């Protein structure tokens, strides 16, 4: 049953990806990005990675769609037709893709308990985290406590992104925001 769901979701994923590459209307492309991300979130759920799925659904489907729509409002709604046929790009993508697929043949099976990634620190997290850290959700223990430094780094990255945007675009003061309302009434 799992494999059946996976195949359906992956088919949707590829259809969405192909459509995004083909479509010239940016509004449709942005909506398809949202769908792509939602289908990825479903795939993460089938892999039992609910925390990742949650993030993907909230960020990928929600916030980035809104931000891309807001960006599109500032530019045109139609992608320019490229002046040449991107055959070399297609060739590069196909070659890189085949190399990556070839590389996956050496990987251990999905969920294989003997895979190296499940032998390193994972057993300690699974066996010790209830006694060492406490929360029943092991993902929280790993993210917040064992890997607290990484999460601090991520927070700093988000903060840096925020102040970079602030420095580049600036935020209008309340009084200047009037015209936006006028735009809305049009």
């Amino acid at each position, binding site marked *: 049953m799992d494999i059946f769901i996976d195949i359906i979701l992956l088919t949707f994923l590829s259809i969405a990806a192909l459509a995004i590459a083909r479509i010239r209307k940016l509004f449709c492309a942005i909506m398809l990005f949202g769908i792509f991300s939602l289908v990825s979130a479903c795939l993460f759920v089938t892999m039992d990675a609910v925390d990742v799925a949650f993030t993907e659904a909230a960020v990928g489907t929600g916030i980035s769609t809104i931000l891309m729509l807001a960006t599109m409002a500032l530019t045109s709604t139609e992608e320019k037709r490229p002046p040449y046929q991107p055959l070399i790009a297609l060739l590069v993508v196909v070659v890189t893709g085949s190399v990556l697929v070839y590389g996956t043949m050496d990987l251990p099976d999905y969920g294989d308990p003997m895979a190296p990634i499940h032998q390193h620190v994972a057993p300690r997290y699974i066996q010790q985290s209830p006694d060492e850290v406490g929360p029943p959700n092991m993902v929280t223990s790993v993210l917040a*406590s064992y890997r607290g430094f990484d999460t601090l780094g991520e927070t700093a990255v*988000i903060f840096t992104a925020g102040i970079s945007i602030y420095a580049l675009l600036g935020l209008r003061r309340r009084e200047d925001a009037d015209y936006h309302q006028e735009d809305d009434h049009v």
Partner: protein
Amino acid sequence: MSDHLILRIIAKMFIPFILLFALYVQFHGDYGPGGGFQAGVIFASALILYTLIFGLKTAMRVVSPTALRILAASGVLIYGGTGVVCMVRGGNFLNYSMLADTPLAGQHLGIFLIELGVGTTVFAVMVMLFYAFSGRKGPEV
């Protein structure tokens, strides 16, 4: 978008529940999926919905850009500060076991605090991004 009566009413009905759900995700992260990052994004999405319906000016009266700047910085400060408090109390940086009498209680408090920091920063930055983009004028066509 003030003419869209149905959108306005539905948004008014939904925004409190979105905010409540964000708080649930924030504080229930120890027990279920979720945590500061997701909660911050959901909280921000409630405010973005508010901005879409009621306009940027009204939204800036609810959460001003100055408040956003302070919130974004204070999230990182809460996180880093928790680490420093751990050091002051004799542990390593971000070793929460030192925060309370027992290591488990300390870990619980530490995780609560840093998730709060992450949530605050993520919320502030997401809304800041949206304000920055929607506050700009489109091309004169």
